């Protein structure tokens, strides 16, 4: 049992489930039912198996663990090479955690071609887990691209009226970005002679080459993350995708971009990262402010959440390339938090969409009266998205902002305005949906959350609060790996004569950040003011600033260059 290839098992169990579903024959009703049952069982078993990964994982070690290594195509230096480190392990868990929830969420809402839908969902899980655990670059690329296929089908077959356009845009946009990455992979392979990512991580590429390679990788991951101005595919994809598609898209697929930015751009190409830090900062800040404003103007709920995702991922890219302990820590935490929160928000939208079949915000109103349970659940996730202390959203946003502040005061300053905008549109959305008079007859007729919906919201609620009140339980897993990443990054920069960003021991900020947040807890029906949500974090940022102002000037790598 100890030597089981547990990563491969987690990856391919869903595919086996998909094959089983393929074999299901019989009457349409029975087929649909059996397909759902098989999908649920497979995804639950996969989740249990993936828990074993977490149990076997040793957080104290920075290297890759549970490594599986087999020869595959030696002529091209391609191996079947898998492994996890602290950075990837949570994303594996996120994929296996969200898939059963998606199966449940699609239980009644997907009516046509259920068999194919469940197969796509399971294949998507395979591709996602495979991508996060691949240590061979070609294997990584195969899974990275493979994700597109099930998602293309999910948007195109089960999507809304504009599904064709959305599916095309989604596929072609991400494909062109990825092809450029493939060129970069080939160029790196010809330098190193193997596709082994571990070797590439240790290899120092020529600085001028790094600058080109960095751009190629950035093209792929910036589209995937997505960063402004490459985000335009996301709102379309989200609006048209079925609920489960949106959940997987926002929950895990966007994290592929963030993961890639850490793994390839920051870890393998430190000089490139230092060169383009300003570019990333500008893009991130524009994303945070601009997409928040765009979100404010949306009349479609899904579009609003989609734009808010772009803004939230802006904190991630900002945190990663501030290249200090707080920023990186914050970026990781923000990604994990966004996984749960955005997934939950899309599920929330799915709940009312299934009942009324519209996403127009104006069609709803006053739902707090007839759907109190739903109102509570929605409020919790809304506040987590805004970054209320005590929920997961706060820790990530706060830390990444702190990191950015250290790297560049202006960036930190502008980014913090995003918090206010974020609170503005989310609270506005909440007010329009839940408060006011319950006038519309069809809205009035909607039943509150049923048992199935409560079942799939419960674990999400638990995780959001757990992450908010005891973030260390999550961050401890990746702390050592991040320390290692940063140490490596500083060494590489120092070797080139560039001033490394400020040196602070990693992950020491989490308990401090969390200390005063314990008391705050979302109330159920009270209207929290805009200030209420934004307040705890904004005053803190300047408070930290004087302490960090000394190394700030050198922290900007461009200044030192």
């Amino acid at each position, binding site marked *: 049992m100890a030597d089981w290839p547990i990563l491969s098992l987690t990856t391919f169990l869903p595919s086996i489930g998909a094959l089983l579903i393929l074999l299901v024959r019989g009457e349409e009703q029975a087929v649909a039912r059996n397909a759902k049952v098989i999908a649920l069982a497979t995804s639950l078993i996969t989740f249990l198996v993936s828990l074993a990964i977490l149990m076997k994982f040793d957080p104290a070690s920075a290297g890759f663990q549970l490594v599986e290594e087999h020869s595959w*195509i030696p002529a091209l230096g391609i191996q079947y090479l898998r492994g996890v480190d602290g950075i990837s392990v949570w994303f594996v868990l996120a994929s296996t955690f969200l898939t059963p929830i998606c199966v449940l969420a699609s239980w009644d809402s997907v009516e046509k071609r259920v068999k194919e839908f469940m197969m796509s969902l399971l294949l998507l899980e395979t591709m996602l887990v495979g991508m996060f655990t691949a240590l061979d670059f070609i294997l990584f690329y195969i899974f990275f*691209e493979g994700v597109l296929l099930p998602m293309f089908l999910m948007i195109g077959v089960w999507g809304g009226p504009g599904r064709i356009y959305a*599916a095309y845009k989604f596929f*072609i946009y991400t494909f062109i970005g990825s092809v450029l990455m493939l*060129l970069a992979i*080939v160029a790196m392979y*010809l330098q190193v002679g193997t596709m082994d990512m571990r070797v590439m991580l240790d290899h120092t590429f020529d600085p001028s080459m790094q600058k080109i390679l960095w751009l190629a990788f950035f093209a792929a991951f910036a589209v995937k993350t997505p960063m402004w101005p490459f985000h335009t595919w996301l709102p379309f994809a989200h609006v048209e995708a079925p609920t489960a598609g949106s959940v997987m898209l926002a929950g895990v697929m966007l994290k592929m971009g963030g993961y890639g930015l850490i793994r390839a751009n920051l870890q393998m190409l430190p000089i490139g990262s230092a060169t383009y830090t300003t570019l990333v900062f500008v893009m991130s800040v524009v994303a945070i402010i601009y997409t928040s404003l765009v979100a404010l103007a949306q009349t479609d709920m899904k579009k609003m959440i989609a734009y808010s995702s772009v803004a939230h991922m802006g904190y991630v890219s900002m945190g990663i390339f501030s290249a200090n302990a707080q920023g990186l820590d914050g970026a990781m935490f923000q990604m994990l938090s966004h996984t749960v929160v955005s997934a939950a928000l899309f599920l929330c939208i799915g709940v009312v969409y299934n009942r009324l079949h519209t996403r127009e915000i104006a069609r709803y109103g006053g739902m707090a009266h007839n759907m109190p349970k739903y109102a509570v659940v929605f409020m919790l996730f809304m506040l987590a998205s805004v970054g209320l202390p005590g929920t997961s959203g706060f820790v990530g946003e706060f830390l990444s902002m702190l990191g950015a502040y250290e790297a560049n005061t202006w960036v930190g300053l502008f980014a913090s305005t995003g918090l206010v905008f974020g609170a503005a549109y989310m609270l506005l959305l909440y007010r329009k949906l839940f408060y006011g008079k319950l006038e519309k007859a069809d809205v009035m007729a909607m039943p509150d959350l049923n048992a199935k919906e409560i079942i799939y919201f419960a674990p999400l609620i638990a995780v959001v609060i757990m992450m908010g009140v005891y973030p260390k339980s999550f961050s401890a897993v990746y702390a050592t790996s991040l320390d290692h990443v940063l140490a490596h990054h500083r060494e590489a920069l120092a070797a080139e004569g560039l001033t490394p960003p400020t040196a602070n021991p990693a992950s020491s900020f989490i308990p401090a950040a969390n200390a005063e947040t314990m008391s705050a807890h979302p109330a159920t029906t009270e209207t929290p003011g805009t200030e209420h949500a934004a307040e705890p974090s904004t005053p803190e940022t300047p408070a930290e600033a004087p302490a960090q102002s000394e190394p700030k000037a050198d922290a900007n790598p461009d200044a030192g260059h």
Partner: protein
Amino acid sequence: MQPVLTDLIPALPEIFLAVAAMLLLMLGVFRGNGGARLVSGLAVVALVVTGVLLLRQDGYDVAFSGLYITDSFAVFSKLLILLGTGLSLIIAQNFIAREDMDRFEFPVLMVLATVGMMMMVSANDLLSLYVGLELQSLSLYVIASFRRDSAKSTEAGLKYFVLGALSSGMLLYGISLIYGFAGTTNFITIAQVLQAGPAPLGVIVGLVFVAAGLAFKISAVPFHMWTPDVYEGAPTPVSAFFAVAPKVAAICLFIRVLEGPFGSLLPQWRQVIEFCSVASMLVGSLAAIRQSNIKRLMAYSSIANIGYALVGVAAGTADGVQAVLIYMAIYLVMTVGTFAIIIAMRQKGKAVEEIADLAGLSKTNPMLALALAIFMFSMAGVPPAAGFFGKLLVFMAAWKAGLYPLSIIMALTSGISLFYYLKVCKVSWFDDVKEPLDRPSAGLSWVVTATALVVFPVALVIGTPVLNSAAAAAASLFH
């Protein structure tokens, strides 16, 4: 008499196939048109036997006073050609019976064309090159217009013949120039002459003409004009055959001519190849977007694919040749599979060719739709399908040879071409059924399933041995 006999052994597979073609012709004549099915079946058997004879060949051998060469490159390419012809014959079976093409000349001509192609890739002299090429081309002209009562098919044949004759003329003119300035037509001697001193201008001009003539045969831009019309006009199994076997043969011949005798002129011919490659990639991927006829779409797709293969040729290295061989092998399998699906496109017994006719295929025939999606994604180069690995190899070879702009153009055009491959998937998966397609015959389903399985997932497993034999084949050119 001893020398003549030893000469015959290297050419044994070709001789066997030529004799088999004649015997099949006789059999057809004596049995009348009723024997077409039998002749077809026996032709496939003959191709298989030829393949077995080929596999028994190993090593390097020059025969017929240096006119003819066998090496592992020739064996690899010939096996591809035989596979292409064999699969085309199998998928043609049902079609020719239904479309009143049930005549025994059809398989016989295909076998004769195959003999020509095998001679082409074994040519070690400009003369044997020309003879092989003409044997192939003359058979193809007839096959293109095989449905002689159809105006479209006749037009396709005529167009192909006129333009083909023009290209043959250019080729011959180039050959005469090379002979005039180098003093020989033998590849080995030409190589020696060119290595000995600076290349005479006449040889370079001659080489450009030869390259233009060969570019016509592989339908590289700007010599591609015939392709869409011929693909559309010719009966579908014939288009399938045109898209695979002659393409493989011509590009292998191209490689043999360029890398062999003219290897030392790499800087000169690389410009020509690079131009053709970029133009083919751009025209192939842009012009295909507006096509509504699936055969025309495949014609432009084949032009784009040839552009990608030429990137590997332009690399001018053993890696490049290996990449092209693998690329063509994968291209062959997925193209035959796609054409098998096109042949299966029948509504109430009538053949249809519009992309729109595939609407809702995933509901009426999910397996066929799945196979089509596999082929389309493979052609677009989306992993994990085999087409991705073909493109990856070409990328690697081109990058290694320093052809950076070419690789970047290749990357971007494959992004563009994704658009029309997705269109086929979109119609078959997302659109609603208008008129369901008839059930395909057993032979077609067999070919579709087998080729789809090879493209994904079998290719992931058999990758290494195929790669190794392609590497050996490529190495035999650069000994």
